[in-house]
């Protein structure tokens, strides 16, 4: 690629960015993943979804996990959430091993998983009520959160009356009201259109900036990962292994203008090289060359 040669290395960090990372790494470790492995036993034999995955996440860090489809991103986050068991290694949250789902790890799914029978406010209250907070207190907390996400007018609406972006905002509030140590997000904006997606990204950064929360965010969108993350965990497929943990050199606060900044482009070029390597095994779709026969009149040209 020609453009890459003009770009700085993605490893180059400005003074401010380096200082940020130093401060970040001096904060305590929230999540530690050690030699994590996962095999699925299927009728066609064993599928190794994850193999020897290691990383640490510090308090108030924003980590994105990126990788080609089927590389085990969902498997990883579901193990962290306690929804899936692992075959080897361990997951430590605040030094304690994860054994099952719990309120200390909030999760936002790609599909909308709001409870359709509850109003927006009741959805946000749900986690608190499950943890024996009184209805009055839960209601007050929920109202506060609805104000924060700008949906106080929809407090008594049902989920099916909301747009996709609004639903995910409620889902984020529902997870955060429980004050989890870490927020796990599995392609939460994957089903949204481009415009609402950008809005939601800005939105999420705004929330993250203002409360004490660590975020682990899965995406397959490179721009999204660079825009959001402090560090990006790049996975490769078959088996799912960590390729690199990239420190994003783009300074904060982030804004849409940075999409064309040199640091941004350099990081993106690196990610592209990792995810779509030049000498990759030949792509099945690329093998098929279109062999079209002309079905229209010779004079009837579109180009």
């Amino acid at each position, binding site marked *: 690629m020609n453009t890459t040669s003009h770009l700085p290395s993605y490893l180059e960090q400005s003074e401010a960015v380096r200082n940020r990372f130093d401060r970040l790494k001096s904060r305590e470790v929230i999540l530690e993943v050690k030699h994590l492995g996962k095999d699925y036993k299927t009728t066609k034999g064993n599928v190794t979804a994850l193999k020897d995955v290691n990383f640490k996440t510090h308090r108030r860090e924003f980590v994105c996990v990126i990788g080609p489809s089927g590389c085990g991103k969902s498997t990883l986050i579901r193990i962290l*959430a*306690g*929804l899936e068991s692992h075959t080897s290694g361990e997951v430590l949250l605040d030094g304690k091993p994860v054994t*099952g*789902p*719990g*309120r200390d*790890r*909030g*999760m936002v*799914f790609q*599909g909308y*998983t709001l*409870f*359709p*029978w*509850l109003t927006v406010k009741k959805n946000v209250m*749900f*986690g608190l*009520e*499950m*943890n024996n907070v009184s209805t009055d207190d839960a209601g007050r907390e929920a109202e506060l959160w609805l104000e924060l996400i700008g949906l106080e007018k929809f407090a008594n609406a*049902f*989920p*099916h009356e909301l747009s996709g972006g609004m639903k995910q905002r409620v889902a984020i509030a*529902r*997870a955060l009201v*429980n004050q989890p140590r870490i927020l*796990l997000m599995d392609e939460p904006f994957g089903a949204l259109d481009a415009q609402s997606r950008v809005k939601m990204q800005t939105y999420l950064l705004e929330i993250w900036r203002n409360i004490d929360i660590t975020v682990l965010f899965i995406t397959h969108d490179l721009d999204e990962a660079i825009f959001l993350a402090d560090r990006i965990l790049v996975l490769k497929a078959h088996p799912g292994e960590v390729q690199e943990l990239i420190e994003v050199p783009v300074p904060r606060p982030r804004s849409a203008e940075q999409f064309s900044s040199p640091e941004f482009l350099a990081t993106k070029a690196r990610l592209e090289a990792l995810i779509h390597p030049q000498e990759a095994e030949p792509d099945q779709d690329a093998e098929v060359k279109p062999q079209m026969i002309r079905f229209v009149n010779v004079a009837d040209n579109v180009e």
Partner: protein
Amino acid sequence: MNTSSWFAVRRELSQNKKTKLGVASFLLPLLIWCMVSYLPFIWHPKVLISNPGDVDYFQVGMLVDKATFRDELSNMQSTGKIAPQGQPANPIYLPAPHEVAKAFYTGFTTAPEQRDGQWLHESLWHSIQIIFWGFLISSLIGVPLGILCGTYSAVSRLNEPFVEFFRYLPAPAFGALAVAILGIYDGPKIAIIVIGTLFQQILIIANTTRKLDYALIEAAMTLGTGRIKLLFRVILPGVLPDIYRDQRILLGWAWTYLIVAELIGTSSGITWFITQQARYQHFDNVYAAIFMIGLLGLGGDLLLAVLGKRLFRWNLSANKE
């Protein structure tokens, strides 16, 4: 209006069209019935004798086969005797719509002919009670058990193989047994409805419960929901509208077991009324009673549908119906 808007594949029709078609679905069979009843050339295989003439066994008001009538007519004509007269008519078991309509009305206004007979509405009320108790008892066992089967695989494996077997046993086969155990009055009738409904109910409710989106259960677990609360605060409210819809369908099945159930022991209720009327060849009353069951069933179901919309405002599929 073009036909494509009526026959677009799996498209919703406008409210107007829906109403029109709904009315037509009732008018169409009624129209066929009217044609068969009032247009003699369509069917009318019998002759209603209005004047027996010299045929010794004919009487006024007697229904004879067309062929018999034709034979006797030619017999009489060839021997020079007085020819019988009559109009084409349908068999006694097919009364005309207006006769049934009249019976529908008089069924409620005339006292029963037999001293021990019941009024139509008394019979109906008795039947409704049988259905109510049968369905209630079945639901009290079937709904909770079905939900448990749909939630816990262990409960499901412990129950469903046997239930699967039992549901193939025809409920009426237990009639004699039910009488021996529960006597000859309402007990065995209720039991037959329970046996006919319960086993299907367990399986249907279990399947419905299993259809709840597992992601909702996972979401609840990541919010710190414990096992018991998962059942009562997520699974139960999540499947309630679908269970409600299942119950409506199952109630329809309970109605179909009613007639069989009421023949067991001393026959009673609407079945007693129908068999009694049929014995005296009051087929107009028989039809009136059968329609009455249909109306009660449909009316009840519509009522439950409206109630369901009120109860489950959040449920899109229920509101679409």
